């Protein structure tokens, strides 16, 4: 059955500002399909972003949308959600926005297990500002601020968010949009903090400068450097180097531990006292 994704898009704002072959559009494409597969009420859905290329994503989506300051999307989203837990709150962030300047909010969002769905567009670079290295740029990679090769180590955000308390953790990749849609749908339906890292391509500022190539070569690179999470677990350690597991990495279903539900219990305890 054909899906009408255009009803979730602000068509008058398209075409979007992203470069040819940028994976951000594919992420949006998968996201609106995922939303369509849930019974989420679009009128009760808020999409929040920070700054950077990913920050522009909510502007193309026909929901209540908020484009905030650099790195703070999860903090704004936390206020939106706690003030009205009926809302479905989605955060779209990038690797710089979400894991550098916004890293603290990411881990504390996980720790609270507040019911947000966070999709992190991981293109391994600061795109908007012209290709500086991010916390997700691999060691050795060339960026405008690592002209001799990046000496930083990159994060494993899946491990980080899982350790910090997120109750749904997954990784997708833009070469596999069917899986992305599935992961986003599960994340949206999960009651608790959902984090879905999405490997994404920045041909202009990353691919070409690191001898990977253009958009299609970068998608092929993803395919070659990823395996299903189930397979990953069985792989010997030495083979895991440079390979990313894809799929649901961690899941814990415990709706009562969700932050707004816990707060509601405090409110309810006063309501009982009044009875």
């Amino acid at each position, binding site marked *: 059955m054909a899906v009408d994704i*255009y009803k979730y898009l602000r068509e008058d704002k398209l075409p979007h500002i992203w470069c040819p072959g940028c994976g951000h*559009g594919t992420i949006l494409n998968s996201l609106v399909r995922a939303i369509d597969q849930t019974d989420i009420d679009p009128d009760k859905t808020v999409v929040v972003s920070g700054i950077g290329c990913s920050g522009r994503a909510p502007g193309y989506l026909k929901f209540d949308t908020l484009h905030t300051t650099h790195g703070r999307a999860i903090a704004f989203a936390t206020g939106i959600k706690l003030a009205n837990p009926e809302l479905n709150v989605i955060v779209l962030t990038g690797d710089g926005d979400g894991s550098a300047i916004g890293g603290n909010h990411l881990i504390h969002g996980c720790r609270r297990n507040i019911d947000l769905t966070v999709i992190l567009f991981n293109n391994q670079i600061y795109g908007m500002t012209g290709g500086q290295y991010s916390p997700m740029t691999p060691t050795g990679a060339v960026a405008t601020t690592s002209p001799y090769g990046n000496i930083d180590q990159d994060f494993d955000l899946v491990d980080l968010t899982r350790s910090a308390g997120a109750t749904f953790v997954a990784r997708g990749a833009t070469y596999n949009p069917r899986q992305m849609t599935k992961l986003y749908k599960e994340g949206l339906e999960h009651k608790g903090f959902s984090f879905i890292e999405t490997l994404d391509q920045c041909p202009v500022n990353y691919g070409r400068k690191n001898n990977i190539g253009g958009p299609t070569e970068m998608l092929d690179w993803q395919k070659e450097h990823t395996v299903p999470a189930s397979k990953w677990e069985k792989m010997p350690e030495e083979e895991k180097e440079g390979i990313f597991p894809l799929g649901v990495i961690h899941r814990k279903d415990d709706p009562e531990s969700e932050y707004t539900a816990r707060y509601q219990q405090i409110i309810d305890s006063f309501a009982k006292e009044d009875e």
Partner: protein
Amino acid sequence: MAKGDKVTLANSGWCKRCGICVHVCPTDVLKLGQDRVEIDDIDKCIGCENCELSCPDFVLKVVKVNE
């Protein structure tokens, strides 16, 4: 995806000619024209939706043709 579904250029004007659709098409239906993607041979289309799902620019849409 269903039998008889075929790709269409729903929003040709949004195409940035990145080539992803051409790359993910298993049957070489699409080609890159001067400015944007074009349909080269619609008869080869099996309606798999790979192009529609991968397109970053919401250009392609697979629709029923035998209504």
